Each structure stands twice: as C-alpha cells, then as structure tokens.
C-alpha cells in the first residue's frame, strides 16, 4: 500500500534510468543519508564510531571491491587484503615522500597503485578459471605481504614494517576526532558506492556479468575478454586499495603488513557471501554482520554468561558459533542477506492487502 510504484510514470529517459526509480526509495535513500551524515555524528558515542561504524564502512568498501570482481565479473579472489595493503602503503608513501600532498589525492594515488598491482595479478585470470584462479590469487596475498615486510623502503625502514598514519588535514580542517574521521570515511564510501552502482548498471557492468555467466559466450558476442577481466581486476583492486588506505588512516592509525593477512581476505569474502554476491548493498550488510557478530558474541560471553565460562573456552565458543552461523546462513539463505531485503520489498508492495 505504501510501497508501490503504481501511478509513478516515467516521462523521460532520464527518469527511466535513475538509480532509485521509485519515489519511496528516493525518499528512503535521502533520509538514510541525512541520518548518517547529520544525525549519527551527534548521537553516536566514541565507541560506536570507532569500533563499529567506521570499520563497517571501510570493510563494506573492501567487500564492494571484491563484489565487483567476484560477484559481478565472476572471478573468485582470495587476495583482497593484499590489495588493501598496497593501497594503505601506497598512500603512506605518497604522503611521506611528497611534501604537501593532499590526503584525498594520496588516497586516489594509493588506490591506483593497488589497481596496477591488481592488473598484474589479474593476468592469470585470462588463462585460469574457477578455484585454480582463487588459489593463484593467494600468490598475490602471500607475495605482496612478504614484499612489504622484506623491503624496508615501503615502511620507511621502521621495525617489522609498521607504519603510522600521518595526520590528515584537508583544507585546514584536522581529521582527528572520531566524528570527523567518520564523516570523511562516509563521504569517500558514499561517493565510491554510488559510482559502483552506476558502473554495474551501465555497459561496463553488463559486460562483467556476461563474462561471469559464460565467458566464451561473452567473447562470441563481441566482448573483449582480456579488457573486461583486467578492468574488473583494476577497479576491484582500486576499491580495495582505497579501503585499505582508510583502514590505515581512519580506523587503526598504525598498521603492519602482517595485519593484511589471509584471515582478512577471508573475512571480506565472508562479507560478500553473507551479504549477497552481486549486490552493492549486500556488501555493506555483510560487512555490518561480520563486524557486529564478534562484538555481540564478545558482549554475550563476557557479560552475562562470562562469569561462568573460562576465557579460553569462551574464545573457542566464539569460533564455534561464528562457524555455525556461517554454515546456517549459507544453508538457509545462499543468496545472502540482500536477498532477504529484496523479498521484504516484494512483500511490502502488497502489504497489507496481499490479495
């Protein structure tokens, strides 16, 4: 009754190709953005901003990057954390070595570094498919982390490759408080997410999806495989790289190469599987789920039940519950949480008069 498109006519091509064609969605999106930009910084406390909202946004961006590659272009990758590392260390070096480098430009350049590395490690995808490719991307994961640890130049010769993020100053505004960091992260993530949404709606995204569904067929209808696949690798790595830079500058402050390990790659893969493969919003829902789940488990085990359970048993219980939940979600909803949202919208169109 409240959520339906009846009576909303599209009179121009422009209206037809909007991101949110239904008025209710437009209102909802604007309201959400207003809430995130204008309300959240004032009502959220430091803990929420630092430990929940900022990581959700950053991981959501990384998951979005992986989703472009895996969900849209169909190339399974287990090396996303390594591309994040390239972005983080690239940004660090641009900030460090060039005087007066603006932060946003440095992030952009860091992302481009990641994109270049992504193209390099995407080359095997022209020859290898499926799980063989997934294992080959592990080469990127291990090799890049090793390079960053071994060659001190990347971390300005600090011990064990730890880098400390420089202070971020844009147009004289200092981004040190959690609120400012949150706003900057939110801005970058929103811009990139809208960009991604438009990419997957346009011919670029349709080419990716054609390659995903069947690359030989895509080639037959005139899609250049090499270009499309490498483009997906480059853009995906760019997103991961920017996420990595934000991870270092807005979230942790100090990072080491070992922090971008295989666990992080898997975590990002979990996000897109649980959130929804091939869905922009799913990336963020998945990120929220994966970030919040350990927090909730932690609270549960160290709060109410914690008194009765020894610490190492509690951490094992967390592992067990985390694993079970992933299995449970995959069995119950293999298309991810984004699919639930879609179903809810379908239901809402008819509610409250289903017949």
């Amino acid at each position, binding site marked *: 009754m409240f959520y339906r498109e009846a009576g909303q006519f599209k009179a121009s091509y422009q209206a037809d190709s909007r991101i949110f064609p239904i008025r209710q969605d437009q209102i909802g999106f604007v309201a959400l953005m207003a809430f995130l930009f204008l309300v959240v910084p004032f009502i959220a406390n430091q803990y929420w901003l630092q430990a929940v909202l900022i990581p959700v946004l950053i991981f959501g961006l990384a998951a979005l990057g992986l989703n472009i590659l895996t969900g849209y272009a169909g190339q399974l990758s287990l090396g996303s954390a390594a591309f994040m590392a390239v972005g983080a260390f690239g940004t660090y070096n641009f900030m460090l070595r060039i005087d007066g480098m603006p932060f946003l430009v440095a992030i952009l350049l860091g992302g481009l570094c990641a994109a270049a590395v992504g193209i390099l490690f995407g080359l*095997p995808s022209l020859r290898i498919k499926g799980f*063989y490719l997934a294992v080959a991307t592990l*080469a990127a994961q291990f090799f890049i982390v090793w390079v960053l640890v071994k060659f001190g130049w990347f971390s300005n010769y600090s011990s064990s490759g730890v880098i400390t993020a420089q202070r971020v100053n844009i147009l004289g505004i200092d981004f040190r408080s959690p609120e400012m960091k949150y706003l900057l992260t939110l801005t970058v993530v929103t811009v990139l997410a809208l960009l991604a949404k438009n990419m997957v709606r346009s011919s670029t995204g349709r080419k990716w999806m054609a390659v995903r569904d069947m690359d030989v067929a895509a080639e037959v209808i005139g899609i250049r495989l090499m270009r499309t696949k490498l483009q997906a690798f480059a853009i995906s790595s760019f997103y991961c790289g920017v996420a990595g830079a934000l991870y270092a500058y807005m979230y942790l402050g100090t990072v080491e190469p070992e922090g971008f390990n295989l666990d992080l790659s898997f975590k990002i893969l979990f996000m897109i599987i649980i959130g929804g*493969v091939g869905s922009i919003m799913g990336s963020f829902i998945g990120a929220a789920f994966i970030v919040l789940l350990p927090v909730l488990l932690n609270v549960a085990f160290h709060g109410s039940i914690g008194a009765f359970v020894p610490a190492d048993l509690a951490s094992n*219980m967390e*592992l*067990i519950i985390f694993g079970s939940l*992933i299995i449970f979600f*995959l069995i119950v909803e*293999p298309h991810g949480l984004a699919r639930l949202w879609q179903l809810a919208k379908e239901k809402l169109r008819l509610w409250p008069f289903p017949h």
Partner: protein
Amino acid sequence: MTFFLEVLIGGLLSGVLYALVALGFVLIFKASGVFNFAQGAMVFFAALTFVGFTEVLPGWTGLAQGTAGNFWLAFILALSSMIVLGIATERVVLRPLVNQPPITLFMVTIGLTFFIEGVAQGIWGSHVRGLNLGIEDVPVMFLLDNFDMIISQFDLIAAGIALVLFVTLALLFQYTKVGRALRAVADDHQAALSVGIPLKHIWAIVWSVAGFVALIAGLIWGARNGVQFALTFTALKALPVLILGGFTSVPGAIIGGLIIGASEKLAEVYLGPFVGGGIEGWFPYILAMLFLLVRPEGLFGEKHIDRV
C-alpha cells in the same frame, strides 16, 4: 653436489607430506565437487583428538601411556571421531546445499573450518602438545657414513608411511566395489545415480576416507612440529600442490607434492639469500601460478572444454 642432493631429497620427502594433505582435498573434490578448505582443520582435529585420547585413556583403561595398546586404542577412537565428523558433515552441512554453486560450498567449508577448530580446542584445550610416534628424528647413519648426506630417518619413514597409504588407497579405488562406486561418482554424479549408486553414502564414505587421510597426515605432521594450531596451516601448503597437480588427480597430488617440496627447498637455499629469505611462504604459489599459465588445468587435471 652432496649438499644439493641433500636439499633435494629433504625437499622431496617433505613434498610427500604436502601430498598427503593435498590427497584429502583431491578425494573430496573428485567425489563431491566440494573444495574442502576444512581439510587443514581436519588434520588439526585428528591429531589433537589422537593426542587427547592417548592422554586420557590410561586413566580409563589402565594401559600405560606409550604402550602399543594405548596407541592403537587412541588411533581407533580418533579414526572413529573422524568418521563421525565426516558423516555429520555430509548430513548436516552438505545435504542441504546440494546443487548450490561451488563458491557457496567452498564458503561453507570455511565456516566448517572455524567450527572444527573451535570444537577441537574446546574439548582438548589449546596448549601445544608433543606427539611421540617412537621414530627418532636422527640422520640415517648409513647415508651419513657412505655418502656424507644428512637425511632424517623420521622423514624417510614418514614418506614410507605416506607411500603405503597412497598404494593402499589406489588399490582400494581400483579393485573394490566401493572403490568402483567412488570412481563412478567422481566421473559423473548423475550417471552414477542413474545406475543405482547411493550418492549420499558415497559422500559419507569419501569424507570418512578424507578424515582417515587427515589423521595420518596429522600424526606425521604433529610428531614433527608438535600438535598445535599451526597444523591448520598445512592446508595452505597443500593448495599450490593441488593447483600444480590438478584438483581431480591423485597421482597429480603426489607428483605436485614432490615438485613443490623439492623446488621450495631448493629455492630457499639457492635463491633465498639473494632476496632476503623467507620465500617459502609464497614461492610455491608463484611457481604453481606460472605453471598454470602453461597448463591451466594443472598437470593431470581434467581438460575442460568450454561449450556455448
């Protein structure tokens, strides 16, 4: 030259151990098309269960720790646990996910990895344990005296055990009814179903056999490096072996293991010093990746013909 041979043989022997872990992957991938990332966790679970039983059994049965009776009893109990784990996995996890895309099945095994790790440490505790199989890690005297080579006796015997296992499995696959059924399922699920092979039983059997392989691998790796969480990383050692040998080929796993083991050690010794060492972590992957550029299905993988 002696040194080269020493490194080469040492590498080949450790390659056999990589192959042992890779074998578990291949068995499951062949029969059910599941890329089972939990194999490493299974190795860890098996070794930990075995050691756990050898510790608690003396209290129950009165057998002294370290006796043969205690060893075999613990072995049988650990094996039973692996079989129960295999059957439970098939029932609870895989059966509801039949016909899902491979990536979903792969992800579910990562979930399973967390679950198994949690259960194993929850039951037996998470401290590092030693595991003594009664084989000493000393150089073989004969080789040391005559050829001046240091080859560990333990590695040699472990490789021997692994080879016996490979041969047994090969015979089992080739000459028994279950083996024929397994091969049929591996060839074509639907065709196997249509001639009356119970797919579900076969999957349970395959997961149990993989559990058995994991137990053997866990015992050998555990005796070598101690039974600890790091055993789960054996899976990462096995992955390049897999892509080199092909996901669906048992001989491929063995030969891939030998190639990776040998080249990894040789690279570490001869190439490592030029780039600062520590290249064991990624070298096998780069090697396997370069190899894939020439043969995209691995050495013995099935040739895949794309049709539109």
